[in-house]
């Protein structure tokens, strides 16, 4: 017992940055996932994350607002911004929506680069407060809520919008309200993640909240599996940890990292969540062939 907890403690001490970042990236991936759940490809999450992070920084440095309240304020503020952003973007689809949200991320990043209260391009320091158990408790609650949502009437309405928006509307689903709701929820999740991120890393600067982060978040979702809630956190945790596992490969590890991503996309179209059922089918097919071979020989 003591040996096990000792080993766990050593493992945690060696990997705690990775463990924390995996959990945070999982929340960011969920923020992209809720948009994809109703067929919207948005890359705006880093901008919402920035809003949450700077809210946390200013509140901690200038006021006595407690940490949980900062989470609420950051998440709500980002949610409101996302909702307002959603209003003019409702008519855009597919790649056009994606590019427009990339534009929004670029504009937000430039804003924070020149915004003196946030330190501009130099960034701003914050006292740390986020702990590992907080990240994973929040992640677990969010996964549970979204998983329940997936099976509910609300979730099925979102899926209907994803599959055929016109048909969903003709069935009486208020597509505008659902899409705006998805925008707001995406903003809330990424804003919350931004608060946690800022108070974990002591220091934030605008370069974090850009296009690269947006592409990473999207990659987590698609590699994990964009059709179920659990795919996004799974993808985020594996992709965040992967470069560390490949450490033994030294110089080649980033290349291998890219190749693994490519292989998952090519061979597991539904994402990593599909892996167990794929393997079962492969093993099943192999077993059938084995069973059949004596007969054909006889």
């Amino acid at each position, binding site marked *: 017992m003591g040996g096990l907890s000792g080993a766990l403690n050593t493992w945690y001490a060696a990997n705690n940055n990775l463990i924390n970042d995996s959990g945070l990236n999982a929340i960011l991936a969920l923020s992209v996932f809720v948009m994809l759940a109703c067929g919207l490809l948005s890359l705006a999450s880093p901008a919402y994350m920035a809003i949450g992070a700077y809210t946390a920084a200013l509140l901690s440095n200038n006021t006595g607002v407690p940490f949980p309240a900062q989470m609420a304020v950051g998440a709500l503020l980002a949610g409101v911004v996302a909702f307002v952003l959603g209003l003019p*973007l409702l008519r855009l689809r597919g790649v056009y929506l994606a590019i427009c949200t990339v534009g929004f991320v670029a504009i937000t990043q430039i804003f924070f680069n020149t915004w003196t209260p946030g330190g501009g391009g130099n960034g701003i320091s914050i006292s740390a407060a986020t702990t590992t158990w907080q990240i994973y408790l929040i992640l677990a609650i969010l996964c549970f809520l979204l998983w329940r949502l997936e099976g509910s009437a609300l979730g099925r309405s979102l899926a209907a919008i994803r599959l055929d928006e016109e048909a969903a509307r003709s069935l009486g689903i208020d597509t505008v309200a659902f899409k705006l709701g998805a925008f707001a929820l995406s903003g809330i999740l990424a804003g919350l993640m931004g608060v946690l991120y800022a108070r974990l890393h002591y220091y934030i600067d605008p370069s974090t909240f850009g296009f690269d982060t947006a592409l990473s978040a999207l990659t987590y979702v698609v590699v994990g599996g964009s059709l179920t809630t659990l795919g996004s956190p799974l993808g985020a945790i594996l992709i965040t940890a992967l470069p560390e596992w490949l450490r033994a490969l030294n110089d080649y590890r980033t290349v291998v990292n890219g190749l693994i991503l490519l292989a998952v996309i090519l061979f597991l179209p539904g994402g990593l969540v599909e892996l167990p059922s794929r393997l079962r089918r492969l093993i099943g097919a192999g077993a059938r062939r084995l069973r059949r071979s004596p007969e054909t020989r006889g």
Partner: protein
Amino acid sequence: MLQQVFNTLINASIYALFAMGYALVFGVLDILNLAHGAIFMLGAFTAVQAVLGWHWPLVLAIPLGMVVGGAVGVVLDLVAVAPLQARGSGFLTPLISTIAAGIVFENISLGLFGPDAYSFPTSVFPQTPITIGGAVVQPVDLFVIGLTVCLMVGLTAMLRYSTLGKAIRAVAANRLAAQLLGINVARVVAITFFLASALGALAGIFYGLELQDSISFNMGGSVQLRGLAVIVVGGMDSIPGVMLGALALASSETIGITEIGSSYTDAIAFGLLFLILIVRPSGILGRRGSRVV
């Protein structure tokens, strides 16, 4: 003033060549190729390696860079795009697979050339400035602008009149119908990737010729976003649209630097992008439902 016009034209040429690659692939396949920035980088590295390492003249190094870039584009199509298209997987998964391929390309280049920034030696081009009505222009600038205009005109003519151009347009209009008419769709798509990537590689070479110490493994990032802005502003429909979009972006950047200060140039570009997408999602010259080729 005239000087600013020339600077704008140089940037516009690079943006137009780069964005043309996006537009060609998007026109034929309806997907965004996010490895295009990495191909831009590979083209520049190939040419600079040929000049610095193997002492080739620039006239040979440029075509080599384009051919290597084009070949990488074909490999990208065969490995990361065609298998996904074959099972009809929409636009999202090819987007991610091209991102992954871009990561691989960038890291291969990082492994081969290291993190340093390279330049073409100044001796590759005559350094005697030419004065045109008060503006001082380097010969290399005229070369960049001239070749870009020629290529754009040539590409337009090729797409309109040649058999290959007609086949590309047929595949863009209706993949299935084109196949039924006997067009080898997979081959046309591969050729489109070759053309698009060769143009992207040339844009990278021009970028390296115009800017000192600009050739590095992550040089594609700065152009990637601008290329997206160009195809959105111009519409993914037409070659004139792409050229107009490139001019609009380059001039807004020039005006931004001279009038407001350089820290806001990107904000202007993307503010413009944002407004146009909201007001006219199909771009300035775009028509809904039809695309570049």
